[in-house]
């Protein structure tokens, strides 16, 4: 493994793996063949020696029984022609040589430990030596059940050693040839792969350097590398497209900010001439009214009223713009307490003394306290405004947790509206009723929508004409509000 880590180039790894793998495979295969051949040759040699000893035993039995040493010597002479024969002999049970391929040994007694062990061994086939260089086997000569002598045959194994050496040399040459061919093949494959993968790497480096127009061009068969190149190109296309979109969004955001800034600046600057108009028209009305006829006084009143209205519009624009620009201070907000304070303030401001307000349990939430207070003030102002014509105006304030949202609502029993205009309800300066019927600029619900949006929430309305309206806003429920979900759901549902 360390070798592979050191070979950082995958081309080198391919060449090494391929070549070494082939070398190892052929090596193991060659070793297996040599092993098999070796086993076969040695087994064959063993069987040959055992066969010779058996033949000698069968041919010698009668001569041994007759103690005919001359005849035995004749028998054993017939075995001398075997090319690998080292010696063959017939031994009496006492270890005396009855016949031997070296006639000079006839009549002598064996004296080495192995031979002495043999003559004491049970009368069955005995392998005295089975080495790389020789096989020495003894077989008993028996007459019926009587053990009368031993035959012993030793064969050399020079021929086997020679054959195995030749086979090993051939195998080694074959291994080297195979390894060389494997090396060349691996080198060619690795080079081709390296060239193609290298072109992909080059594209990635160009992209990393900021050139999103760089594309991979891999020619050749429709293989994995080609597929990889095509995939890379598609990915780069998508990347370029998303970068373009991101730049557009950024430009849009900048333009939006500039627009807001411009609106704020315009609104702010319009106040100065407007105050001048208001001031001078009031002076005109207060100090020079006697110089104006009735039509002049009426027109001056119109100017004064529109000045006030324009002032309200500018103030609302500034409020709306401010909600989009001001920083948010997020904290745990007790919505129920906040709603009660807002209700008290709005009731005081509007003088709605006969209003019946019912505040349920509202789950707390994390958000900007002043902004959320602004939300409730706007919703409650609207509710009071659009229900004041009722003899018994009634407002319900509630909230509950649903999923990962904290949902709040303000419901009135006012004049309601046709739901087909619901989409227009939250637009800036959108009004569903005439200014003569209900005062206001139509900025309140737009501000509610913007604040809810800045908290990551949403708003919607449900209404029945002449029967009342419910405005809902949902905020992301934090951990603090989660525990209240189950407790409040039933109650909140009843309120809605």
């Amino acid at each position: 493994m360390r070798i592979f880590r050191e070979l950082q180039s995958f081309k080198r790894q391919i060449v090494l793996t391929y070549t070494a793998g082939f070398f190892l495979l052929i090596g193991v295969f060659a070793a297996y063949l040599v092993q098999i051949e070796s086993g076969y040759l040695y087994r064959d040699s063993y069987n040959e020696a055992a066969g010779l000893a058996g033949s000698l035993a069968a041919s010698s039995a009668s001569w041994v029984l007759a103690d005919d040493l001359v005849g035995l010597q004749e028998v054993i002479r017939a075995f001398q022609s075997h090319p690998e024969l080292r010696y063959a002999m017939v031994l009496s049970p006492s270890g005396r040589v009855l016949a031997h391929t070296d006639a000079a040994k006839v009549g002598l007694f064996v004296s080495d430990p192995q031979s002495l062990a043999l003559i004491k061994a049970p009368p069955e086939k005995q392998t005295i030596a089975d080495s790389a260089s020789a096989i020495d086997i003894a077989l008993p000569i028996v007459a019926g059940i009587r053990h009368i002598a031993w035959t012993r045959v030793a064969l050399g194994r020079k021929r086997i050693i020679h054959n195995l050496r030749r086979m090993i040399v051939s195998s080694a040459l074959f291994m080297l040839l195979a390894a060389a061919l494997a090396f060349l093949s691996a080198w060619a494959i690795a080079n081709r792969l390296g060239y193609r993968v290298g072109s992909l790497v080059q594209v990635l480096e160009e992209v990393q350097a900021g050139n999103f127009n760089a594309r991979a061009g891999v020619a050749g068969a429709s293989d994995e590398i080609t597929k990889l190149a095509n995939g890379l190109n598609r990915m780069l296309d998508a990347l370029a497209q998303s970068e373009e979109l991101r730049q557009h969004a950024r430009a849009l955001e900048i333009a939006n900010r500039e627009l807001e800034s411009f609106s704020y600046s315009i609104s702010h600057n319009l106040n100065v001439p407007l105050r001048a108009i208001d001031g001078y028209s009031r002076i005109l009305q207060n100090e020079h009214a006697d110089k104006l006829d009735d039509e002049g006084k009426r027109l001056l009143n119109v100017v004064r009223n529109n000045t006030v209205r324009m002032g309200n519009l500018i103030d609302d624009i500034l409020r709306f713009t401010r909600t989009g620009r001001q920083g948010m201070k997020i904290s745990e907000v007790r919505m129920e307490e906040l709603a009660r304070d807002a209700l008290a303030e709005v009731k005081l401001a509007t003088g709605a003394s006969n209003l019946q307000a019912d505040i349920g349990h509202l789950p707390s939430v994390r958000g900007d306290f002043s902004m959320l207070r602004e939300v409730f003030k706007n919703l409650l102002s609207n509710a009071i405004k659009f229900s004041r014509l009722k003899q018994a105006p009634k407002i319900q304030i509630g909230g509950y947790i649903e999923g990962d949202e904290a949902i709040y609502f303000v419901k009135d029993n006012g004049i309601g509206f046709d739901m087909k205009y619901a989409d227009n309800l939250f637009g800036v300066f959108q009004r569903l009723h005439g200014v003569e019927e209900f005062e206001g600029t139509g900025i309140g619900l737009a501000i509610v929508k913007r604040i809810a949006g800045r908290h990551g929430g949403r708003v919607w309305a449900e209404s029945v004409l002449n029967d009342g309206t419910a405005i809902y806003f949902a905020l992301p429920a934090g951990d603090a509000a989660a525990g209240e979900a189950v407790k409040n759901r039933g109650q909140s549902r009843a309120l809605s």
Partner: protein
Amino acid sequence: MRKLLLGLTLIVLAACGRDGESEKSGPRFTAQAPEAAKEYIFAIHPLHNPIRLFEIYGPLIDYLNRNIPETKFKLEASRNYDEFDKKLYARKFDFALPNPYQTLNSLRHGYHVIAKMGDDHKFTGIVLVRRDSGIRNVADLKGKKVSYPARTALAATMMPQYYFQTHGLDVNRDIENLYVGSQESSIMNVYLGTVAAGVTWPLPWEAFQKEHPNKAAELEVKWETEPLINNGVVARDDVPETLASRVAHLLDTLHTTEEGKAMLARMPLSRFELADDSRYRVIEDFLAKFSRTVRPLDEPRK
């Protein structure tokens, strides 16, 4: 990389298996015999081929070894009569069971008779012919070949030749005498038609009938000679007399035990009996007649 190559080399070398063993020297020899108790050679004349002889007489030698445990007996066969004669007359055997003619000759080489096979009535020569040979009389053998086991076999050669000679056939002129080495060989020569008649004696013929009944059925005993004395058991004169007596006694009483009867049945023989040199004078008489009538006796080989 070096380690990898080294590993591969080791794999290949491992395949060579039995490597590195030094060539072992062959067995060593000495002229000095290991100390061993004296072995008494008990030789049986070539009644059968050596393997069969060991099958039949091996148990008898085992019996002697068991009953005389302080002495070791070894059975020795001979591939033919010539070899047996040479070894007998060279005094190689301590004990021997020669045929009557060899028994008589052995007396001149320092042996003496201690026992003999019983069933003298079975010691005859028999002449076998093929049933389909058309041979009816001894004279029908004229011009034909006759097989014998050996020139010096008494029952299977000399006695039948004396019979032929005394029944109108000149053994030396009218027939071709083939000495084929063994009793079984003489019988097989008749069966195969190589010879017109084959001579043997009852024991081998009975054995042949048991072993090869189909072949034996194609043969018939055409003539049988008068009986003579059966094979003798001799001991060399330097064998301790007490040992010779014990051997003779064990042979004489062999038929009294079940084990002994089983051994005798394989020979086949009803019993051994005690005997001495004088019992074989009848052989001397027969040989005198034979040499006068048929041919001179061969000088025993040494």
